[in-house]
């Protein structure tokens, strides 16, 4: 579930409030949005993908709240790691351009992916 909106990184653009499909954030005037409905988070990571300053962190467990340390996440390079993997960071190249799913299927001996 969503565990962090970094007040130090956030620029209050409220893109996360707009793009979250389950409406977990609440916008505030001139401040970072708050996580208002954490239990509604479906752990899809898309808010991270859209955040232009890598201020958000979604812990992969969809059912359980965990405490996270911004400092630790930042040191480990976890903030923005999904956006980088998609190639959505500034100056990045879309990962889709480089995927080799058709080659993988031949290697795995399967016809389907999903």
């Amino acid at each position, binding site marked *: 579930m969503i565990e962090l909106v970094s007040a130090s990184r956030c620029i209050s653009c409220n893109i996360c*409030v*707009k*793009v*979250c*499909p*389950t*409406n977990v954030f609440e916008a505030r005037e001139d401040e970072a949005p708050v996580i208002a409905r954490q239990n*509604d988070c*479906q*752990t*899809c*990571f*898309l808010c991270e*993908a*859209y955040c232009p300053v890598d201020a958000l962190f*979604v*812990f*992969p*467990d*969809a*059912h359980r709240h965990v405490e996270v340390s911004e400092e630790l996440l930042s040191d480990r390079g*976890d903030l923005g*790691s*999904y956006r980088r*993997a*998609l190639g*959505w960071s500034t100056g990045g190249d*879309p*990962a*889709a*351009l*480089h*995927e*080799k*799913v*058709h*080659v*993988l*299927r031949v*290697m*795995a*001996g*399967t*016809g*389907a*992916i*999903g």
Partner: protein
Amino acid sequence: MFSDGLELDADVLVIGGGPAGTWAAWNAAQAGASVVLVDKGYCGSSGATAPSGTGVWVIPPTTEDREKAKAQREALGGYLADHDWMDRVLDRTWSNMELVDSWGYPFPREEGKTVRRNLQGPEYMRLMRKVVARAGVKILDHSPALELLVDGNGNVAGARGVQTQEEREWTVRSGAVVIATGGCAFLSKALGTNNNTGDGYLFAGEAGAEFSGMEFSSQYAVSTVFGSVTKTAHYSWAVFTNEAGEDIQAVKDGHHSAATIGRTLIHGPVYAQLIKAKERPEVQAFLRLAQPNFFLPFDRSGINPFNERFPVTLVLEGTVRGTGGIRITDETCASTVPGLYAAGDAATRERICGGFTGGGSHNAAWAMSSGSWAGEGAADFALRLGASRKSRRLTGAGTSAFTESDAAIKTVKSEMLPLEKNMFRTDAGLRSSLAVLNGLWASAGARTTDRGGDARDAQRSREAAALTATARWAYTSALARTESRGMHRRSDFPQIDPLQQRHQIVSGVDAIALRYEQPVPRLPVRDLVSA
């Protein structure tokens, strides 16, 4: 009551902004219709596709390849698919993928040509939103629909809902409505499915539509126990083991069997390890590029899935990957109710999959094809009505809602999510679940427009009704199919029964009626090839 409501008029209203909804909206706009698209969340991130990567059932238009593609899933689907529909979907998917390319999707290239076989959800749905907006479609985000509007003759003529971020009601009067609300995963938290609560089924059912194949609603996906990512293709590189470390033989010919995993899971933990790619760094790199979010649960939990085994579980995907849905009556994806069209997972996918669906490839092809036809069909229907449609008197078709929605949702989940109730079905089990669910439905209150609560409460109360209704249609149909076919697995009837090679059609929200429909007679394959 909400004040300051938003009132709009459009030729076509599309409910749902995933792949099926965006293709419907774009095609309706191309056909000259004015279009409003409403999404419960955000068109671009809502639904099962946006956070996923998906292969697409796209086969070059050569007879031999296509015959092979069609034959491949025949037995798995329980011989309920229709070759004409498969041909149409293959044709439309081929041309739609050319459009996606022309719109600038970053397909990989090989020898100067784009390779159009896979779509990464975040890229695809971000692009579809842009394309739809550019076509002049008005998009309302965070605007769940709550009920359809019908005219005096029973034609569907719009919908009503709420805007959860503005705390106001919206009403769209339209000539036709496309339901593209996705399947129903019963709030299992399968990746990207928590908006997929069966709302569109409820709306359609209340307006009198029929459903086909609702017994094919028992699809489960493998997930780590510590993560939400239910994308399963990468498990063709896995070996699944039990507590003792013995291989449970869940992977055959590169495909894993959810049922084998399920049988072991009922008795104890199951582990997986992507061991077949352990010594293959090039495969590992490809796997990361193919599905970047697959690795987030591992990377963030400090687990290397190639080098160590990790606990897995099964998560219900219901009719998202299951194939049941609104019965469509013709090539425009019209339902049995005039003015109401269905597309994507909201519509039955039996036409191309029968009772089985493995990966997302057929689903992606179906969403973009059925979305296109539904959009065109709805536009044609609406434009034929002309200006006279604006003078119709409309009423809400919504009937039931729960005030104690959280309790109702908990009850539905406890009947639908457990493997021993839904994956392995029995007569006694289904009867016992139906007694609970029918009792729950009887306790629902009337849907009223005079609500005291906020927009989210209104949304939740109808989601609870939709989940309950969907569960009842699924289990009513499952009880009637006294055999195992496709994904529908009856422990008391483990064999396929040739006499039951037919579609099961359910309808009705209070009393549920069930009837049978014979599938389209099939020509022997050799006749098709020579024809």
